[in-house]
């Protein structure tokens, strides 16, 4: 991939330090990190089940929690201002017990 296309690199998220599976208690706030820095006009938002509640602190840091036990997949959706760039990150799994 060239530098020009590198700005189209797929976002990568984790529960911290590369962890892609995390087990949390009901109501426990869990952190999600996105490692890459994108241009200012890019918008990043988490995709997840409506049973989960997430909060975006900034483009690199989100929090999420759930009140129903279960296994949930979470991704990050990225788009630029004119929607010419739309990317979905890797999947991570939150297990709520």
């Amino acid at each position, binding site marked *: *991939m*060239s*530098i*020009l296309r*590198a*700005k189209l*690199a797929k976002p*990568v998220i984790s529960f*911290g*330090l*590369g962890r*892609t599976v995390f087990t949390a208690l009901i109501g426990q706030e869990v952190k999600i*990190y996105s*490692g*890459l*820095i*994108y*241009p*200012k006009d890019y918008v990043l938002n988490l995709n997840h089940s409506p049973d989960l509640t997430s909060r975006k*602190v*900034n*483009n*690199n*840091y989100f929090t999420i929690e759930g009140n129903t036990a279960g296994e949930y997949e979470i991704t990050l959706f990225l788009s630029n201002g004119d929607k010419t760039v739309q990317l979905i990150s890797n999947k991570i799994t939150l297990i709520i017990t």
Partner: protein
Amino acid sequence: MSYLVYINGILIDLDESRPLSQTKQVNDMAKLDNRQSNFTNNFRARDTENNRRAFGYLGIEGNQSNLPYQKNTAKVFDSETGEALVVNGWAVIRRTTNAMFEVFVVDGIIDFYKAIENKTVSDIGVEALNHVKDVATIVDSWNDDKPYIYIIADYNGKVYTDDSKLNADYLVPSVRKSYLWNRIHEYAGFTYSGDVFQTEKFLNNLITFPKPVPTSEPVVTLITNQENGVLTGGSWFGGLGGLNSFGYAPSFFPNNFDTAQANNNQFANQINIEVTGTYRLTAEGELLFEGGSKLKDINWRVVGPDGSISSQGTIDSSIGQAAIIQAQEGDRIMLWTLTYQSFWGSGSISTKFELVSGYSANFNEVLVDLTATEVINQIMIEFGLTAFKDKASNHIVYKTLNERLQTAKILDWTDKFLSRKDERYQLTNYAKVNRFKYRYNDENANHFDGFFSINDENLRDEVTVFQSKFYAPDNRESIVATKPSLLFKLWNKEVKDNGEVEYKELDGRYYTLRAEFHSLPSGFILKSEALNTELTFTSAPFVSYWRLKMQQIIFDNYLPIESILDKTKIFEDSFWLDIRDISTFDFDCLIYNKYMGSYYLPNRILAYTTGQPTRVELIEVDYFKELDVPNPIDYQLEVINDDPIDYVGCQLTFIVNTNIPSGSTVTIKPFAYSPDGLGGFIWTEVPMTESITAVYSGSGTIIVTINSLPATLFGYKFKLVWVSSLFEVIESGLSNTVFVEQSCYIPVDPPAPQMTFLTITQVETLSITAGLRKVKVSYVSDLTDSSMMLVATAFNQSLFGLAQSQTFYLAAPTGFVEIDIAHNSIAGPPALHTIQLNAPAYGVSSNIVPSAS
């Protein structure tokens, strides 16, 4: 054509025969390890009365002006347009002659670096990090909002207490780099911004306290300190059973004390505890009595409200001994001596009772050899940052190299292009191999260093682009409180003659590391042996070295440099730039030139002068060069040890959890059970003349045939190692022990007799109990092998006594063995024995010596 130059607010009369020019730069790509400022040429100011006053009458005999040695503010404006070339500059007066003053002006990031020049991290004020260390503050540091964290890791200290709890005394605090970064900017009077500062890699990034937190002298609150008095008469003392002989005994606290923590309101030698905590009792001096007897042993005992004894001990006042005592509210601490004296003697004992808060973790005292500039440079390099200082204010915007190249604005200078003056093919300071290095405990180590290559045969072989001030951990993994840890050595271990391990403190070990929180549902106990306190925890930060290896740092932050440095072309192009182009130029851009059909990274603007062509140093960026995209997931290679390692014949099958590419060649390193030199045994790597390798098929198993290992009775463990295409070494932990059939091993020929003598040097009785004598037999030999089978035989000297033998299969060539000698006597003295050692494999026997009586 001319400029208005203000120095310390005074407009200077310039000598127009040597016009002022300015070179602009922020981050010369040829020098990654430092950052540069803008500077003007040495311009001249005429010898006028105005200038003489402005320059403090320099050059006049007897002049004492300090101007050449101080910071002189400077502003430079274009006289025609009023555009500011320099707003916040620094004028340096170089020399004075009869006819002129020679000056140059620097601006840009220099203000920031000057503000922290020669300042240590202690100088910038990190008092907020100082704290008193005890188990409570350690656990408290595990909250997000603390600038320091006690990360659980192997610091090569005494990891566990004698009762197998996690030893708090051998944990050290680590400070967040983000805290130091903030603090340094605050100290310098600067603000900053940048998206990189909200990433996990920046926020979860710490530096260890560079040495152990001292546990020799605790932080205390004095409760009382008194010279002894004399107790006389009936000797009821502290309710310990009522000894009623008449005589004299010391009163350790003859005067009443009554504080919030403790009092002796009832009896002089009884301390009533009001506040649960850790206390220190210290006594110094001694009492001398008629006949030469001394009183120096002071007994203490903690008695609960129900009369139960929770702890007790004795301190020797003649050596100023102290006891750390844990006591609960309502407890009583009794003090007494064993005997009453018939006549009072001379001397005195001073007894002190203190509440212990913990041990002082004083960052101010230890961060004296780490400069603020070193911290800034380390972080700048670690994230590939370029600093863009605002021209008019003390604000710095930091951008990564990736951001500069991918998100920068494009300036089309096609219409300003005049000519190409020069084209060069090498940036100085680079080589074929360009290394980023950590410091190591072993000066020959380099396991976490990294490098990038430049494909240019005309460059020198290699160069160190960045040498970190920080240490890398030793590449040795251990398990601490159930989690793996590399070795962040802050102590050295030494075994003393009596077999005890002595922990020697190291200093100046700044390790960089991260904290990874884990839950321990069944709980783990953190205990301080020094303070005798403990707490149970169920969640804690354990050490992580995620993306901190230099090769990973290069991978994450310097990959685009390949598109700049591979087949480098550095151009010096001439442009017609006006003052507006210059005054608004900040290097946070790429230059496009339609005539040349390429994008360029501006490296330097050379000697801009209004109204003249300007040379600009540009580095061509190959935007279409194919790069390896960083894989943000760390490679893992883990042997699943849930079940015994499966084998058929000589073929082993390792079940692995890994994400390395299928088809990768994995090296299998064997480990054998060997003496560790500390009196124990560890698994150490077996050197192989030819590596054992296997190809990973991608199926979660690695199959390998073992047929080149020497025979052993103890089996082997194995470590799997894979080296990525970027020379990143990915290692598994050790496998379970594998016992393959002996026919798979290379038979070991019996060793040639390498021992010529075996001599017992000392026999020492360690203990005698009814029916058993434990004896320590020390010996020397000239055996060169690492271990041997040793038979110790005790011969009973009585007429019908029997010989007793014990065999030690892995005895050291020189050392000691402890043998148990049984004898028939139940309560009387043990029978006499003589002892002899024998190494049957070498046919050598020792001298025969009597056991100690």
